[in-house]
């Protein structure tokens, strides 16, 4: 163990500065096919699209970040912003004001309070009053205090049922729509085949702690950059509940969200199955509040991963039938199964197996070489993401050295969640009320 630590620290020492050169040498001199496969596949699937996107951006920026057309106000379609929340008194005021003042005039806000125990409704009414000068429902703000707790999906359905816009934006109560974002958000709908557009989710509280800074980098790479590329390849697998804009006709036709966890993931799958395209807009920025403590982050990520397993593997398992919902959907299904579940698990097992092969931590050079390669890949994507989307912020760049450890830790958490979900350990989540949970089917 001491030998491993000594070796690891020695290659991290900037004065000696032979970590990366040694990693490259190790990589080039290696004769293991699995080693080469790992490096090359990750480069092809992760780095190459990023580099190609960057090159396109250099040549023709409008293809990546399309400019806003000059349109008269009359042409602006009505957008209903639906917010569902429970005990969100700390953030709901800012959320409603942000939506009303986002620079888009033809907009209404519907807040559905899921039987909060705090003064969310009063704060929401005050926020509405500060903008619309009316404490009651108006043509711009409607507030529905639910008399009973129904869960997020049902609360969103109330809001969707009340919405009268041509487009419905779903956002969390702790998220804020950036000024000027709505126009960018609507741009992809110029293509009539696009059914929903994911927003560019950015971290609102990134300066609070080291954990939130690391999440800011992660959001920049995964939620901004990766989703942009996925959308271009028609492989976007989620329109996040933190910021998603939908054609209202789709949501109305589907009858809203299904109850249970993973509403955004589920809705995305249902829309894909109807052969709608999903878009992503870099310019549509929605700022969200991320967990500050490790406990809350672990809970959030476990919930997310369990939802993916439940929704993608169980409820929508018919997507694995090639051709049933189109080629892209089948590719996406295989990608989700392989890249999100099997490969991370195999990677984790591989790392531990190689590390412990000749006794505990006696072969650290493989781990260290991996570390430097991952770091190189990360740096390339962070620079390109920064160039294209303005995130992550430069002040967080030095934390890049911690990102591999952060992601490794999250992988452990997520794989644990996958195992729990497959074995249905602790399936009931407190986010879903008991009377709803008892009624919903298990797919």
């Amino acid at each position, binding site marked *: 163990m001491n030998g491993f630590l000594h070796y690891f620290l020695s290659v991290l020492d900037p004065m000696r500065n032979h970590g990366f050169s040694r990693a490259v040498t190790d990589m080039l001199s290696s004769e293991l096919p699995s080693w080469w496969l790992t490096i090359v596949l990750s480069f092809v699937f992760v780095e190459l699209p990023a580099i190609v996107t960057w090159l396109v951006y250099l040549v023709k920026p409008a293809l990546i970040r399309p400019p806003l057309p000059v349109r008269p106000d009359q042409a602006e379609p009505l957008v209903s912003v639906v917010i569902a929340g429970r005990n969100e008194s700390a953030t709901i005021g800012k959320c409603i004001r942000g939506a009303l003042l986002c620079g888009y005039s033809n907009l209404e806000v519907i807040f559905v309070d899921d039987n909060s125990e705090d003064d969310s409704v009063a704060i929401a009414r005050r926020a509405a009053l500060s903008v619309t000068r009316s404490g*009651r429902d108006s043509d711009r703000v*409607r507030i529905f205090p639910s008399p009973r707790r129904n869960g997020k999906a049902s609360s969103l359905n*109330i809001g969707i049922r009340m919405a009268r816009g041509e487009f419905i934006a779903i956002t969390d109560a702790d998220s804020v729509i950036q000024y000027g974002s709505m126009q960018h958000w609507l741009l992809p709908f110029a293509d009539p085949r696009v059914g929903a557009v994911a927003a560019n989710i950015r971290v609102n509280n990134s300066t609070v702690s080291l954990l939130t800074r690391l999440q800011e980098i992660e959001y920049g790479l995964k939620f901004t950059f990766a989703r942009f590329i996925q959308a271009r390849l028609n492989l976007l697998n989620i329109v996040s509940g933190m910021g998603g804009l939908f054609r209202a006709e789709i949501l109305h036709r589907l009858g*809203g969200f299904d109850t249970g966890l993973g509403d955004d993931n589920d809705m995305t799958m249902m829309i894909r199955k109807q052969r709608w395209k999903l878009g992503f807009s870099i310019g549509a920025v929605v700022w969200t509040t991320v967990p500050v403590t490790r406990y809350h982050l672990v809970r959030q990520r476990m919930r997310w991963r369990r939802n993916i397993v439940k929704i993608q593997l169980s409820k929508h398992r018919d997507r694995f039938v090639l051709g049933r919902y189109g080629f892209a959907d089948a590719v996406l299904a295989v990608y989700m199964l392989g890249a999100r579940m099997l490969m991370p698990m195999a990677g984790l097992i591989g790392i531990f197996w190689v590390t412990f092969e000749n006794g505990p931590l006696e072969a650290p050079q493989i781990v260290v070489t991996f570390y430097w390669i991952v770091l190189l890949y990360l740096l390339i994507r962070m620079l390109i993401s920064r160039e294209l989307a303005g995130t992550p912020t430069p002040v967080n760049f030095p934390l890049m050295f911690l990102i591999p450890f952060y992601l490794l830790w999250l992988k452990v958490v997520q794989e644990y969640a996958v195992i729990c979900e497959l074995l249905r350990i602790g399936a009931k989540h407190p986010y879903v009320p008991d*009377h709803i949970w008892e009624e919903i089917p298990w797919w």
Partner: protein
Amino acid sequence: MREIIPRAAESNATTAAAGTGTAAEERRLNLLRHIALAGGKIAPDAEPNAEHGYAYGALGDDVERDLGILARRNYLEARFFDRVSLCPKCDSHHLNVREVCPGCRRAHLANDGLLHHFRCGYVGIPSEFSPAADGSYLCPKCNGRLHHLGTEYDRLGKAFVCRGCGLISENPPVEAVCFSCGARTPAEDLISTLVFSYVLTSRGAAAIRRGSLLDGDDELVSVAAAPVYRRKVILEFLDHEMKRLQHFNSKFSVLLVNCAASAMDQSGDASLTQWLTRLRQGLREVDLIGQLADSLCVVILPQTKQREAEALRQRIVAELGPQSPITLSTVEITEPRHLAQVLAGLNARGEPS
């Protein structure tokens, strides 16, 4: 109250014979008598043709104004009876007040409520759920049957559905349409006016007994609602203090209290009363305070020298603070001519002596 009436009638005859009351005062006195005859209380009756929808019987046109004046002068006690909303354009109370759709502003709303199916999460108005043969409902989303309220589905509180545009609203805006001028006004912009019932006070009863309103200087000891003697009373005390000075050489001082007219105009009598009450609290029990004119009071400080009076003045000024509209000045009275000079000075300022 029964005792009052014959006395009131008697005193009325006396006063009328003397010819001392003005027409308005006589009218108000008659109003007090009418209230006394009605049992000491008068309450408004709904009257659609009245200006504000309420009328106080057949008491005349100026009755509301007179009642207000009498209540301000403590002959009557005003008690809240109702609040009437008026059109801000024409002051009419003929209003049609109702909820309107926040979208299309039409009043064609139905309080249908929303149904929520637990199994699939569908939310819709009841008419969307088609009834089944067994008395249950079918969910339009999942075709599941809704048998039991509370376990399979639920009603989501109050929700108004617009029959015109279909918009659903939980707390729709309230709007009034004026039947007189046709103006549409949001409820929060309507003019509100309070309607009171009135109860005869002991002071009102005393006025009836005497046959005149009791506002003359010689009828009351204190200014209404303030711990201050009326002018006639304080002049009597001054006269008495002068006699003590002449007989016992008991020198005294007076504190002249000037109230800023601008402050009085802005904050009204209630504010001035509060300041005078605070001033009274700062004085000794043996000190006497009375009103010489509307904006002038005098404090008699028995057996007090100029130096002590000045110390008292400074203490009171400090207690009242810089916001006070009151200015104080001291004068020691050691000879009768000193007081004569003070009163002459007041005459020069136009104040009655």
